[in-house]
């Protein structure tokens, strides 16, 4: 194995010790892990020299210390539970799947799925998210110890969210999720990430949405303020399928999310939406990618950000429209509210269009609280801090409206209001 990166030894050591204990893993997975490790060692942890990480400095992560070291003592808080049925929790060195799953839905740990010989695992696991493009996805593939597999059987319809909670501990640091929605099924999955102290979580979720199926995916990043969070969510969609992704990013010192879908059949619909709210010296970076490979597909993106203090935000939205993808309808919008003079946002739409009969629109705004609106509220007796909170909430409300599950949306509203409550402002 050609290791060219610096600090390779710590990663290699972990990898070798894990591979030694993986006799029971099928060959295809062992081979994918070998390949992934090789890719990671060749690319290393991205640096700001890489155009894709221009504003997001991950150099503190390069030696792997925050990923591979054990948790700080006392760091074993329970992961946050938001709403819906708690179905799997990863905490400490293990992962627990708590039943019973709704009818037509199979939920199991990855290790169990491998032992059981769950069909289609070989087709989907470590094959939807690209280890070629994402060094950190490759790292997760090489090192993950366990994960969650959710299979919605053909025709199953489950709208109550299944809740996956990732807390502290070595298994959850390298969270891995695979969601397979079979033909004409529907499933809703919520992932929560939270912890205490300084650590690095590097998570990967892969989603396969079969013909006419629907997956609603919500991701709540509520990591500790000292944490680093890197995450990849990648979906592949067959014809007439629907996928929605909502990314809530409130926590972590540095958070980088890569969220994408490939529309591989005609008549697909996807929405990638999100809300980030950061303050202090937090940095939150979303890179989205929608690959319109086939005609008559619709994509919608609304990302909103609230930034206070010296916080920084990054949004990069790529839309590819391939030559065959005629009649594509793609809408992208990123709007930011700066609550202080020293907060900063870098936002960039990136459209590559090779078809000629398409509709693609994009827009980005960066603004401050409307002084006229604030005065109007105050002139009616509402205090300054309360007015600011109300206007911040009002700004975020159309993004939050994209969360289909009402109980979850209410929790998120509460979290947002707490975050910009007068005491915190």
């Amino acid at each position, binding site marked *: 194995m050609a290791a060219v990166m610096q600090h390779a030894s710590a990663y290699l050591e972990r990898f070798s010790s894990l591979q030694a204990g993986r006799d029971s893993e099928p060959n295809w997975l062992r081979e994918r892990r070998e390949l992934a490790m090789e890719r990671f060692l060749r690319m290393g942890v991205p640096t700001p020299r890489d155009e894709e990480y221009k504003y997001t400095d991950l150099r503190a992560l390069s030696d792997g210390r925050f990923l591979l070291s054990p948790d700080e003592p006392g760091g074993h808080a329970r992961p946050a539970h938001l709403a819906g049925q708690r179905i799997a929790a990863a905490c400490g060195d293990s992962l627990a799947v708590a039943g019973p799953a709704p009818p037509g839905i199979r939920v199991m740990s990855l290790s169990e799925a491998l032992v059981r010989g769950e069909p289609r695992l070989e087709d989907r696991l470590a094959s939807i998210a690209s280890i070629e493009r994402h060094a950190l996805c490759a790292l997760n593939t090489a090192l993950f110890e366990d994960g969650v597999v959710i299979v919605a059987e053909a025709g199953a319809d489950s709208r109550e969210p299944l809740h996956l909670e990732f807390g502290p501990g070595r298994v959850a640091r390298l969270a891995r999720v695979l969601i397979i929605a079979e033909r004409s099924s529907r499933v809703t999955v919520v992932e929560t990430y939270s912890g205490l102290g300084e650590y690095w979580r590097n998570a990967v979720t892969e989603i396969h949405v079969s013909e006419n199926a629907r997956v609603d995916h919500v991701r709540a990043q509520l990591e500790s303020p000292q944490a680093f969070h890197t995450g990849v969510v990648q979906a592949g969609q067959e014809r007439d399928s629907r996928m929605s992704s909502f990314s809530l990013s409130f926590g972590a010192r540095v958070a980088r999310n890569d969220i994408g879908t490939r529309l591989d059949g005609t008549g697909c619909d996807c929405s990638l939406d999100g809300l980030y709210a950061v303050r202090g010296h937090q940095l939150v970076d979303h890179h989205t990618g929608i690959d319109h490979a086939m005609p008559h597909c619709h994509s919608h993106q609304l990302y909103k950000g609230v930034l206070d203090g010296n916080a920084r935000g990054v949004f990069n939205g790529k839309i590819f429209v391939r030559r065959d993808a005629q009649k594509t309808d793609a809408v992208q919008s990123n709007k930011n509210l700066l609550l202080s003079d020293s907060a900063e946002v870098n936002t960039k739409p990136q459209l590559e269009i090779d078809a000629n009969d398409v509709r693609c629109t994009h827009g980005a705004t960066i603004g401050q609280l409307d002084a006229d*609106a604030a*005065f*109007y509220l105050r*002139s*009616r*007796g*509402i*205090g300054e801090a309360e007015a600011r909170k109300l206007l911040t909430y*009002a700004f975020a409300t*159309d993004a939050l409206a994209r969360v289909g599950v009402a109980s979850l949306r209410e929790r998120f509203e509460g979290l947002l209001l707490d975050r910009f409550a007068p005491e915190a402002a």
Partner: protein
Amino acid sequence: MLRISNLHASVDGKRILRGIDLDVEAGTVHAVMGPNGSGKSTLAAVLAGRDGYSVDAGSVTFRGQDLLDMDPEIRAREGLFLAFQYPVEIPGVSMMYFLREAVNSIRRYRGLTELAAGDFIRLARQKIKPLGIDPGMLKRAVNEGFSGGEKKRCEVFQMSVLEPCLGILDETDSGLDIDALKVVSEGVNGLRGPDRAFVVITHYQRLLRYIVPDYVHVLANGRIAQSGDRTLALDLERHGYRWIEERSTALAAAGA
């Protein structure tokens, strides 16, 4: 109730108010008229505490306290209400939530218990009816997508819910058709009483047929150029503002 003495104010270094004196007693209605640019809206903005206006000299006391020293929300809680010339649209905040928050902010300040949601809805429905506003408006975002007339009616509705002791109406009549004007005026007249006063700022005498003032003041070049009873308004209707402006310019030139 309100005493304005020698008030000077400027915006971006430009002097707009050049020595306003005005006493408003409880139970009275004062109309402030004047041509465009005379300082009418600046006076309203300074009284309500809008940012961007600097008071260069003079004082304003409101119910015995220094008004200019108070934040805008404190002025409101003390009982001052400004009906905006251009009410602000606030997408994402419902009228209901906004107004209940306002009512309860004021009640908390006065040491009263907050109104529960149900009690507030009953109050709002009772106050909205005479103004001919569709109660569905309460569920809509504040002023968002309202027509000009709806916005003005909504200002008067808010005033009737908040029950201030001093209402300042900044060109609430501008752009209203005669039916809307009647409704708005009836709303204001319904609030008149011995403990409440109004300063009605208007460009048009027409309003004063419906809200009959006790006093009329004409503002020109940042000063009150003429005061009188409602017959002054009729003179202005007949002769326009020109004679007053000319007189005020002449007075200023003479150093008065």
